[in-house]
């Protein structure tokens, strides 16, 4: 069965999009473009950090906790949680090993 042809508007769109895509890809695939993009992101991050820093200072002046303090707390709680999870996993593993060892000892004593 023949593939249905695209409507005219779509054919026109494709005809326009192809050269546009080729030019845009030629531009965006350069190292210079990538550098500019990352510098832009970097600048935005710096501005955001500066604004956050200023708001943190203001909140601290009023003796109030800032977002940065909450993040630090979240990080500490998360680290603690991970440690507890690791310890309980390790304990579970040791308990299983002990159980297996106990089983082996029982088998040996029956023999």
């Amino acid at each position, binding site marked *: 069965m023949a593939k249905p042809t695209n409507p005219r508007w779509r054919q026109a769109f494709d005809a326009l999009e192809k050269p546009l895509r080729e030019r*845009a890809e030629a531009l965006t695939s350069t190292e210079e473009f990538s550098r500019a993009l990352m510098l832009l992101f970097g600048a935005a991050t710096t501005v955001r950090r500066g604004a956050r820093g200023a708001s943190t200072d203001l909140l601290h002046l009023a003796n109030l906790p800032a977002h940065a303090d909450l993040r630090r707390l979240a990080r500490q709680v998360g680290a603690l949680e991970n440690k507890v999870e690791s310890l309980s996993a390790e304990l579970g593993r040791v308990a299983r090993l002990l159980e297996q060892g106990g089983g082996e000892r029982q088998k040996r004593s029956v023999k």
Partner: protein
Amino acid sequence: MSVEATAPDALTIIRREVERNALRARNGLKYLTGARFVRSATTPRDLVWQHGKSQLWRYRSDRVTRRPPIVVYVGLVGRSYVFDLYPGNSFVRKLMDQGFDVFVIDWGVPDEVEARNTIATYTLELLPRAIDAVLEASGEHEVTILGYCMGGCLTVASLGAGTEMPVKSLILAAMPTDFSKMGEFFGPLRSGSLDPDSIIDETGNVPASLVRTSFRIRKPTSDLVVYANLWQNLWNDQYMEGFQAMNEWVNDQVPFPGAAFREFLSEWLIGNGLVNGTLRVGGRRVDLGRIRCPVLCMIAEKDDIVPIAAAEPLPALLKNAQVQTVRLPAGHINLVTGRLADQVTIPSMVSFVNHHAETRAA
């Protein structure tokens, strides 16, 4: 051509267009109001292990006929629901239909808590623990691993660093290996001329928006094409289901944990450690010669994220493994989604897994 012969055709066309425009209006409104055409990740599953935000899911199946279980995961910046996009287009469901016991690892969405996670956190700690949990839940003593994209990098780094995971066979799909061939986008990072800290945000991670932009910039007119396709197919409910699920996943990147990113930059991008044999994880040297299980390398020929040149050196680096390479006429994502996954990816995997099951039994 007579007028009598064309009149009914013209009427049919007009009727069809009127119907389609009514459907377009309905679906357009539905889409604009954010209503769901379909839900992602609906295949029934159970959480069998969790550490921090990392989770291991087991998919419920009473038709498991193949051993060992298969564990599937992506890398650190993608969401794992790509494997269970929506009913009718679920890689997990297709694997289950083939008799596999399927487990999926989701690394979670990092925030300030995960900012200090290194590559070693994932390769030497979380992955081996998740595999232990798979063995415990399934009662098996081996697994098959499918590492997709950067998930493959995590797997070879883990095994190459000497973790003792009982991997019976390994499938590495669209895995970047030679990072010098990953395209000019990574140029400023690769040359070391850009300070990584300049793109790490206040949570300590590379923001998801930058990760998303880095993917979208490769096809700068893709948004225009997406909307043209959307208008053309807006009347089609089935198309809208696929469009919504896929579009959501494509735009749903997660932040890259800051410490892992710095390490990824120095060891993988700048050092090109896999190809140069200089890769270190958590202070351990990664020796790909340690990988001795059968490996299936799946290379997507139309991959615009991991170019063929970046993927194809992998088989030669796995010196001590029995490697089978398949090149598929697929893009990066449709390796695991859509008809191509049905027709090409899954049959290749099943044949590989079966082949090694048979040789082992002989």
